[in-house]
């Protein structure tokens, strides 16, 4: 069943809500791992970030079935690692310190993450508000014949 524009708006809002939730999850993971100096790969934890992109027309066509279809205008997020060198701090007593007493730290700035978290939270609320407003508008339209 294809959908009218008024119904597609719901899916667009939903995709934004899901994207912000993923963003918050990634931020939480960064904060939790901000002190991990040696991960499974032997390296310090590398900061993750979400990359937003719009759903394009050809992607809409590729995903078939009622469950997967997202209209054009919806958003998706990909999770990527932030590249770059790790900073070193002097901490000779640290178990992972090298011969010079330097420890490489994750490239996570907790303050920046907190600011990001507030933004993600506000954006989530804004999308929720947009969704509610749209629902109300359609509900009013349905009352036209009363």
């Amino acid at each position, binding site marked *: *069943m294809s*959908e009218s524009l008024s*119904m597609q708006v*719901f*899916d667009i*809002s*939903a995709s934004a*809500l*899901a994207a912000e*939730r993923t963003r918050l999850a990634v931020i939480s993971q960064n904060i939790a791992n901000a002190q991990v100096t040696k991960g499974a790969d032997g390296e310090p934890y590398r900061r993750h970030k979400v990359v937003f992109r719009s759903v394009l027309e050809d992607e809409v066509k590729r*995903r*078939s*079935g*009622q*469950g*997967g279809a997202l209209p054009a205008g919806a958003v998706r997020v990909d999770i990527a690692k932030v590249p770059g060198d790790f900073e070193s701090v002097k901490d000779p007593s640290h178990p992972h310190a090298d011969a010079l007493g330097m420890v490489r730290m994750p490239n996570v700035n907790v303050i920046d993450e907190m600011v990001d978290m507030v933004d993600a939270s506000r954006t989530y609320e804004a999308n929720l508000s947009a*969704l509610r407003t749209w*629902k109300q508008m*359609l*509900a009013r339209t*349905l*009352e036209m*014949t*009363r």
Partner: protein
Amino acid sequence: MSDLTRGFDVAAKLLDFTSARARALATNIAHASQPGWRRVDVEFGALLEAVRLERDGGRKGALARVEPEARIDESALPGSNGNSVDFEREQVQSDKNALLHQLATEFINSKLNGLRSAIRGQA
């Protein structure tokens, strides 16, 4: 399906479908964290086909016979714990479904009010 009840029949059957879908979506939300749970949904294509058969295909009774079916949504990808429910999407599908349900109800109401007025003789 007489001319008098034409509009009703499709709207009434649509209510069966929207009710069934509401149940399926609520079940998904209830199992949102259950490992291995794959989301279920109700497809409305069968209803559209039944209406077409009834009207143009000459198959009387097709509309009366069609029933909604809840099936596993194969296109929903499972996450790391095998669960394929996306909470926000279920919520939003619920909202859309509720609106459709409301629309069918309004349609039936407006037809009923018209009939009542005609029977009473007063608008």
